C-alpha cells in the first residue's frame, strides 16, 4: 500500500503594505508601461482598420443590427463574433478603457516615483558628507580662519544666512560641520522643463490628429453645415449680415459678420465674428476668414401655384466685359453715362440695344476685342438703328463725333457674373450679370433663360415668362467663415508655461548647496561638481566677509583669488 507523504506548507499572509509596494513597483515599471502602450497601439490599429459602430447609434439595438447587417458583406459569419468581442467598437470596450486608465495610473506612478526622489533630495538633503569629500571635491575652497571653530562657524553661518542660505550646524569634537542650502526647490525646474517638452510633442500630435478646420462661404440670409452631410455634433452657421470695410484704394480694413449657430435644431450661439475675435461655441472657433461682396439672390416661382422652383444666392465670381460709355449732345450736355450690359451678339461684338435719352435715337452698343489676354484691345461698336445703319468703331479711351452726338468710350469694365446651372428656362447654361444703374440701384441681367431675350431684373420687380416668375431679391454679400477646433492648444499653453517657468528657475536662480568643515585655523568649503560659477562667487564673498586668506598648497580645483 502506497503511502502518501504530505508536505505542509507554511504560508505567511501578505500584509497590506507589501501588496501596496508590489503594486507600486509594478505600476512604476517601465516594462509594464511599455506593454500597455503596445496593447493600446494594437487596439488602435484594429479600430482604424475595422469599421466602427458610430457613437450616435451605439446604444440603439435596432440601429446597430441594421449597421451590422451591412457589414455582413465584408465579414460574413465573423461579423457577430467580432462585434461580441468589441472589435467593432474598440474605444468603447471595457478592455480598452481599462488599459487606458491603467496606463494613466502607471505613467502617473512612474512620474511620481521619479518626482519623489527629487522631492526627497529637496526636503531631506544629505547634511553631512565624509571628510574625504572635503579633500577631493571638484568645487573646493580652503580658507585661513584663525579664530576658534565655534566663533568662525557662527560668523560663517551669519554670512551665509544673509545670502539666503538655510544653514544647519553639527559639532563633532573640535570640528564644526555646516550645511547650507539655497533655493533647493529650484531642482524641480529641470523636471518641469522635461515635462514641458513631452507636453509640446503631445499637444502638437493631438492638434494634428484631433483638430478640425472647415472653410465655409455663406451668403447673407443662408445657412451652411459645419460638417459634411450629417454628424452627431452637426452645427449649422447662418449669416445674418456680412460686412466688408475697405479703404479708398480698395484694401480691406475689416471683415465682420453677424452669425447664428444652430445645433440639434436649436439656436446655441449668436454674435459677431471678425478675423481676430471669433465666436466660440462647443470648443469650436468661428472666425471670419474672408468676404465676397458680389452676390445676387435669385428666385423662380411657378406662376400658377406660387411654389418656388429655384432659389439660390449666386456668387458672381467671374467678370463679364462691358463698355462704360458717355454720350453728350452738341452743347456738351451729358445724355448718357452708363455701363452697357451686353445681352446679345452682332458678329464678334457683344452688346445691347439702347436709347440715348434726349436724342430720340436707338443704338446698338457693343464691345469687341482685338487680340487676347492682357494685351487685348477693346473697341466700342455702335450701330445707329434709326438712320442709315451706320457703324463706327471707337478704341478704348477715345472720343468721336457722330450724327451730332459725342461718343466717349471711357473704358471696358468687368461686371460680376456667373453661369447659373439649373435655372429653369430654355437653356441649361444661363449667364447672370450683376450691375447698377447710374443711381446705384442693382439689377440682374439673365441671359439664356428665355431664348432670344435677356431678362433684366430689378429688386422686387418680378418678370413672368412662360409660366415662370423670375425674381431678383437683391444684392447679397458672402462671409467666409472658418471653423476651427484645436484640442492641443491648451496642452501647448500649459507646456509653454512649464517650459518658461522651468528655464527661469534653472538658469536665473542661483541655487547652491554647500558643505563647510570648520577646524582651528582652517575652513574648507565644498560643493558638488556643478554650478562652479555660483560656488566661486559665494566662496569669494565668504572669504572677503571673513577677512580670511587663502591657504597655500591649494590643490587643483581650489577656487582662485
Amino acid at each position, binding site marked *: 500500500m502506497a503511502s502518501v507523504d504530505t508536505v505542509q506548507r507554511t504560508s505567511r499572509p501578505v500584509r497590506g503594505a507589501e501588496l501596496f509596494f508590489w503594486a507600486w513597483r509594478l505600476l512604476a515599471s*517601465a516594462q509594464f508601461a511599455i506593454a500597455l502602450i503596445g496593447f493600446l497601439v494594437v487596439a488602435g490599429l484594429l479600430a482604424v482598420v475595422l469599421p466602427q459602430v458610430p457613437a450616435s447609434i451605439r*446604444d440603439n439595438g435596432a*440601429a446597430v443590427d441594421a449597421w451590422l447587417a451591412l457589414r455582413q458583406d465584408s465579414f460574413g459569419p465573423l461579423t457577430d463574433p467580432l462585434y461580441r468581442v468589441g472589435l467593432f467598437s474598440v474605444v468603447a470596450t471595457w478592455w480598452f478603457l481599462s488599459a487606458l486608465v491603467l496606463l494613466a495610473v502607471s505613467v502617473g506612478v512612474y512620474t511620481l516615483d521619479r518626482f519623489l526622489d527629487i522631492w526627497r533630495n529637496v526636503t531631506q538633503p544629505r547634511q553631512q558628507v565624509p571628510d574625504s569629500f572635503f579633500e577631493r571635491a571638484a568645487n573646493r575652497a580652503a580658507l585661513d580662519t584663525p579664530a576658534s571653530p565655534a566663533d568662525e562657524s557662527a560668523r560663517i553661518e551669519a554670512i551665509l544666512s544673509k545670502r539666503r542660505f538655510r544653514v544647519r550646524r553639527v559639532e563633532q569634537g573640535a570640528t564644526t560641520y555646516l550645511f547650507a542650502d539655497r533655493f533647493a526647490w529650484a531642482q524641480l525646474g529641470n523636471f518641469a522643463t522635461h515635462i514641458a517638452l513631452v507636453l509640446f510633442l503631445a499637444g502638437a500630435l493631438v492638434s494634428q490628429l484631433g483638430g478640425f478646420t472647415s472653410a465655409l462661404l455663406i451668403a447673407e440670409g443662408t445657412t451652411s453645415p459645419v460638417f459634411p452631410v450629417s454628424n*452627431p455634433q452637426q452645427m449649422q452657421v447662418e449669416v445674418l449680415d456680412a460686412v466688408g470695410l475697405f479703404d479708398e484704394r480698395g484694401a480691406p480694413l475689416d471683415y465682420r459678420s453677424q452669425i447664428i449657430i444652430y445645433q440639434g435644431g436649436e439656436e446655441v450661439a449668436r454674435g459677431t465674428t471678425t478675423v481676430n475675435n471669433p465666436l466660440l461655441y462647443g470648443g469650436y472657433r468661428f472666425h471670419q476668414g474672408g468676404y465676397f461682396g458680389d452676390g445676387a439672390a435669385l428666385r423662380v416661382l411657378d406662376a400658377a401655384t406660387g*411654389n*418656388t422652383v429655384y432659389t439660390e444666392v449666386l456668387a458672381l465670381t467671374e467678370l463679364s466685359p462691358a463698355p462704360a460709355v458717355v454720350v453728350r449732345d452738341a452743347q456738351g450736355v451729358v445724355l448718357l453715362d452708363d455701363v452697357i450690359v451686353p445681352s446679345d451678339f452682332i458678329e464678334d461684338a457683344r452688346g445691347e440695344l439702347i436709347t440715348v435719352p434726349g436724342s430720340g435715337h436707338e443704338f446698338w452698343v457693343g464691345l469687341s476685342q482685338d487680340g487676347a489676354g492682357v494685351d487685348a484691345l477693346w473697341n466700342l461698336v455702335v450701330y445707329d438703328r434709326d438712320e442709315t445703319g451706320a457703324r463706327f468703331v471707337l478704341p478704348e479711351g477715345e472720343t468721336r463725333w457722330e450724327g451730332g452726338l459725342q461718343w466717349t468710350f471711357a473704358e471696358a469694365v468687368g461686371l460680376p457674373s456667373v453661369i447659373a446651372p439649373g435655372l429653369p428656362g430654355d437653356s441649361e447654361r444661363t449667364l447672370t450679370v450683376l450691375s447698377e444703374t447710374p443711381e446705384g440701384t442693382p439689377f440682374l441681367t439673365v441671359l439664356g433663360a428665355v431664348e432670344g431675350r435677356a431678362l433684366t431684373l430689378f429688386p422686387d420687380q418680378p418678370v413672368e415668362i412662360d409660366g415662370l416668375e423670375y425674381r431678383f431679391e437683391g444684392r447679397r454679400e458672402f462671409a467666409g467663415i472658418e471653423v476651427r477646433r484645436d484640442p492641443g492648444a491648451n496642452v501647448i499653453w500649459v507646456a509653454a508655461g512649464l517650459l518658461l517657468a522651468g528655464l527661469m528657475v534653472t538658469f536665473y536662480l542661483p541655487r547652491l548647496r554647500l558643505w563647510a568643515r570648520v577646524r582651528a585655523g582652517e575652513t574648507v568649503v565644498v560643493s558638488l561638481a556643478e554650478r562652479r560659477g555660483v560656488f566661486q562667487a559665494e566662496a569669494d564673498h565668504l572669504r572677503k566677509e571673513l577677512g580670511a586668506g587663502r591657504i597655500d598648497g591649494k590643490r587643483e580645483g581650489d577656487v582662485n583669488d
Partner: protein
Amino acid sequence: MADPAPETEAAEATPRRDWAGVFRSLVLPLGLLAIILGGLWYWDARGEGANINDARYGTVELPPERNATDRSPAVEIGRAAPDFLLETPTGGELRLSDLQGQPVLINFWASWCAPCRAEVPELVAAYDRYRDDGLVIVGVNLQEADEKVNEFADEFGIEFPIVIDRDGELRNVWRLGGPFDGIPTSYFIDASGIVRSLFYGPMREAALEERLAEILEERAG
C-alpha cells in the same frame, strides 16, 4: 567620518537609474501621448451628439410581423427597410413601418444642399401626380431647425410628410450617398416594406418616373 566615495554618495540623492536607457526614457512621452490620444478618441467617440435628441427617436425595431423577408432589415435592395420613428417639424411623429401597404419614397435632404433644392420641385410634382395612387413621399431632413424646415416646405409647396433626423443617426444606417457620402439620396420602398431601388444625387423626372413605376406596379400587382 569614514563614508563611501563622497561624489557618488552625494549624487545618489538623485538616483539616475530610473531614467536611464532609451527604453525607459520612452515611457513618459509615449505614455502621455497614448493617454492623451486615447482619451481624445474616447471623448470623440462617446456620442455626445446623441443626447441632442430624445432617445426614443431614430432607428427602431421593425416588428417581425412587418418584415416580409426572412432576413434582418438593411438598406439593400430586396431586404426589409430598417424602421424609424422621427419627429415632424410640426410636432407630430412618423413611423416608417406604419406606412406599409403603400409605396414609399424616402428622400434625405437639407435646405443648405443646392442639389436638394434643385430636386424638390420634381418630388412635389411627382407627389401631385401619384398621391391618389397611394404614393407617400417622406422627406427626411438632416438636423435642421423646425422653423427652417417649415419655411422651406412652404416656399416649395411641399405637401408630403417631412421628418427630421435631429442627431444624424439615420445616416449610419441608410448609407446616404453610398460611396459619395452625400445628399440628396432617395430610397424606393414597395408596399410590403422592401427596398426596391435607390438613387444617389438629384433626380430628374425620367429617373424618378422609372423608379416610381416599379413600386407603384408592385402595389397594383
